[in-house]
């Protein structure tokens, strides 16, 4: 092509409706006869429900229905669909033998603060909330356990009667014995406990649902702001509510931020469906701000005892990590996947370490559920290895940048098996490091430090590198190794109309990533159909082909792969038709810029539009060719891809307050081939923002009763615009062989580099080896005071 649309920062098709305020989000939807649901939550971390008295609530004028645990025993608990293979998992009982999560309402017992005890539907939200306040529940309070290490100690309170030791799963990767021996024989050994605090994805838009039921044909419709409409449909219909698959339709409107936390099947959606059926009218539920911390999954919360070992010359040859993680009171549908597989298999980061070993005890506790968010599992792992590299460098008195250089996986080592189960596809880590270093005058850093000191500020810098898996995933590997019960391929259905316009049905679920734009670009690039003539249809299980949804930076790589494969099928049929029209052999036809022509006779040329017209008219087709022009593609990648990068932060710490100012943030990231740099840079900004936010501020704080004490936006901090600099981005492009366009994932990648970079810079500024996140002013001020 003369100019390629692949690689161009095309303006998004999504923007007009969002900029005018007309695009519809969940809470904006109003249906005729709509009723409103409010939920009663458990105030206790662990208690037996002795009695529920509904008498006062029932008589409130306008109350339509009330549901409690006794009413839902015919429905199955939510199932768990991931259980890393080779390890025994322990889950609550499920009538069909699945690993189970929670029941859709608490039955007899509550196991975390915020667990749903009752649901009230009324003609207005105000009435529903009033009735909830009049439900009288008698509880018998039980002892509870809140943290992962206490949960597996002997004598700990038992969360599930069927699991007396509270252990959901023990998983390990690598060779324990070999690693232990390498550590025993090493010249230098550094040990450190490195926790990553519990956080919330905390989207600005709360979760919300509308369920409707049509008694005429017994069909259910669910509107909900999820990342995974097709999994919601499959699980809620067949596995939970026992209604036919074809009777449930799931529709997703615009989603106001998710970052992973809306990528689940939540009990409240199932409750709304049950109530809609009982009432034969729409039931609407919108969560509260507190609910984001009570009912929506938390994330991270790893607690890793780590040992790194190597030689004084900087070469690292062993890494041993023991993680203590918790799922909270129940497993989400994707189970222990983040701490078990994503952290465990990623923990060597960008380095070739001969003897890696990782183990994790994943326990049940009386806390709200924990699930992945942006950077799931990988961010915790990369944080550990990057902090260890700095500490190892300090121990041997070597520049930490040099230690990174020495231990990187080198360009000629790809494809590289990391010893924990992953094969890294491609990389050029040294290049990313050098590009980042070029942008900071480190030779001049002492001058900057003394300038800052004159302003009573401590200046420091930090450097981190990462490599992190994307592209879930090759289905056989996801099943056989990661233990996923389901396929993880991409799907695309591309139809070329008689007019030459295209209609593309995708299975991925956009929530801010611009899928409509990027996937239109792919079709334009492959088939030459003008960008504006491509319609992309998504977010509705009626009509779209099923895929798992959007998570783990998979959509561009996997869904995009399926779209390209569909385009190629279209091209193949069009080429056969062109050969027939020009009466030449198939191999005499070439394609360029949307035209098919006879090689050597460019005047014999026909557009895709004309071919489509002929195929739809079907007046004169080759023997055996069907009319029409459309293609369906199910595409499974052969392996994952590993984007990578190096980040540098320059920070100043106010000595008198402990407040950190980020002076510069430099990122060099490699996502393979990038289709829309405008969108990808925006994703990178969001990743850097989230990483800074977690390094400096964010933490879900529990009191000893298991209540979240900072469950409001005011108390759960997040940086505002004036506290941030302009981030300085650049990219390298190392294509992957594991997608047809050479692109790797990008949506939750750059965050991996951020927390260790910030912590490293702050420690460098203060002159201490390490400080745990979040780096609040109080903690930093105390660290400054206690310096020797």
């Amino acid at each position, binding site marked *: 092509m003369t100019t390629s649309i692949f690689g161009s920062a095309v303006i998004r098709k999504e923007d007009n409706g969002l900029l005018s305020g007309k695009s519809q989000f969940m809470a904006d939807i109003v249906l005729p006869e709509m009723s409103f649901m409010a939920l009663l939550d458990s105030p206790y971390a662990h208690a037996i429900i002795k009695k529920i008295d509904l008498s006062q609530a029932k008589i409130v004028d306008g109350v339509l229905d009330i549901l409690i645990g006794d009413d839902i025993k015919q429905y199955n608990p939510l199932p768990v669909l991931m259980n890393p293979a080779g390890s025994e998992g322990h889950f609550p009982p499920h009538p069909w033998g699945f690993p189970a999560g929670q029941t859709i309402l608490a039955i007899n017992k509550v196991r975390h603060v915020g667990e749903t005890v009752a649901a009230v539907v009324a003609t207005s939200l105000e009435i529903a909330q009033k009735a909830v306040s009049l439900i009288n529940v008698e509880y018998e309070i039980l002892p509870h356990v809140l943290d992962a290490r206490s949960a597996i100690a002997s004598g700990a309170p038992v969360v599930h009667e069927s699991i007396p030791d509270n252990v959901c799963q023990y998983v390990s990767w690598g060779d324990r014995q070999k690693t232990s021996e390498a550590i025993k024989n090493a010249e230098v050994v550094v040990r450190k406990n490195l926790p990553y605090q519990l956080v919330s994805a905390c989207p600005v838009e709360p979760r919300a649902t509308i369920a409707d039921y049509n008694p005429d044909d017994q069909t259910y419709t669910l509107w909900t702001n999820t990342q995974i409409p097709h999994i919601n449909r499959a699980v809620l219909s067949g596995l939970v509510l026992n209604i036919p698959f074809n009777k449930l339709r799931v529709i997703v409107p*615009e989603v106001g931020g998710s970052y992973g936390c809306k990528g689940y099947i939540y009990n409240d959606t199932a409750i709304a469906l049950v109530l809609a059926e009982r009432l034969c009218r729409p039931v609407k539920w919108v969560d509260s701000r507190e609910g984001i911390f009570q009912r929506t999954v938390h994330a991270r919360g790893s607690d890793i005892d780590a040992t790194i070992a190597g030689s004084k010359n900087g070469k690292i040859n062993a890494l041993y990590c023991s993680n203590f993680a918790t799922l909270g009171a129940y497993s989400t549908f994707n189970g222990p996947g983040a701490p078990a597989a994503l952290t465990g298999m990623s923990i060597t980061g960008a380095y070739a370490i001969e003897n890696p070993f990782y183990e994790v005890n994943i326990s049940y506790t009386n806390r709200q559920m924990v699930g992945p968010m942006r950077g799931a599992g990988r961010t915790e792992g990369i944080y550990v290895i990057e902090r260890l590299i700095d500490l190892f460098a300090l121990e041997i008195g070597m520049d930490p940048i040099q230690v990174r250089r020495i231990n990187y996986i080198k360009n000629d080592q790809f494809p590289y098996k990391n010893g924990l189960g992953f094969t890294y596809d491609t990389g050029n880590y040294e290049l990313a490091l050098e590009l980042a270093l070029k942008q900071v005058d480190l030779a001049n850093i002492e001058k900057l430090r003394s300038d800052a000191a004159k302003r009573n500020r401590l200046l420091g810098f930090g450097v981190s590198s990462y490599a992190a898996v994307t592209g879930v995933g090759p289905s056989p590997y996801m099943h056989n190794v990661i233990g996923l019960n389901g396929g993880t391929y991409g799907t695309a259905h591309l139809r070329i109309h008689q007019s030459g316009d295209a209609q593309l049905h995708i299975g991925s679920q956009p929530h801010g990533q611009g899928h409509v734009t990027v996937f239109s670009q792919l079709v334009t690039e492959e088939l030459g159909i003008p960008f504006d003539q491509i319609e992309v249809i998504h977010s509705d299980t009626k009509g779209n082909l099923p895929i798992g949804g959007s998570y783990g930076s998979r959509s561009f790589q996997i869904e995009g792969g399926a779209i390209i494969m569909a385009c190629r099928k279209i091209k193949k049929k069009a080429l056969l038709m062109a050969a027939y029209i020009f009466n030449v052999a198939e191999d005499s036809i070439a394609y360029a810029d949307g035209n098919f022509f006879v090689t050597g006779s460019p005047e014999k040329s026909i557009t895709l539009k004309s071919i489509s017209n002929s195929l739809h008219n079907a007046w004169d087709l080759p023997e055996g060719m069907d009319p029409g022009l459309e293609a369906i593609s199910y595409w499974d990648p052969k392996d994952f891809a590993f984007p990578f990068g190096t980040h540098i932060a320059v920070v100043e710490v106010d000595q008198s307050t402990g407040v950190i100012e980020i002076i510069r943030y430099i990122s060099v990231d490699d996502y393979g081939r990038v289709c829309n740099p405008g969108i990808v840079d925006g994703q990178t900004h969001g990743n850097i923002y989230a990483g800074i936010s977690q390094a400096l501020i964010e933490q879900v704080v529990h009191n000893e009763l298991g209540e979240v004490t900072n469950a409001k936006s005011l108390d759960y901090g997040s940086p505002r615009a004036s506290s941030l600099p302009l981030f300085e981005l650049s990219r390298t492009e190392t294509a992957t062989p594991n997608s047809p366009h050479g692109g790797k994932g990008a949506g939750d990648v750059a965050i991996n580099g951020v927390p260790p970079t910030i912590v490293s810079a702050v420690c460098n500024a203060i002159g201490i080896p390490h400080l745990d996140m979040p780096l609040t002013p109080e903690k930093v001020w105390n660290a400054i005071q206690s310096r020797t």
Partner: protein
Amino acid sequence: MEFRYSVNGVQGVSEIKANLLLVDFLRDTLGLTGTKNPLDYGQTGACTVLLNGQPVKSSMMLAIQANDTNITTIEGLADSETIRILQASFKEYHAVQCGYCTPAVLLVLKDLLDRIPNPTELEVRKQLDSVLCRCTGYQNIVLAALDASKNLASAS
């Protein structure tokens, strides 16, 4: 009680409950859902509207407090030159991701550019402090706002 309102230039009288929040009046009574209600005590600022031209958080005031004032929401600004130029810059700079906070961001930036036609980067950032965005790191929003201020100057 009787609420005399003027929203996006349309005047009316509505019988309302004393405890009705302005955001609920706009969204539920008038159906103007461009203003968001993230149920957050105003902290994210996604409920921002203009009251007599000034940004206010509509979930932090009663509807009756807006009696006899002029309220403007994103829906009422389709013809505003400042908003049109901001929208164009937002597209150009990829300043929209999920789009949930976008109407509020546009309103506070309109207020800024109406007062300070040529703001510095820091002035833009301080103005944006009233709205929380968890998608963009504010970067492209800041760049789009600075671009819009230049385009406004050349348009006038």
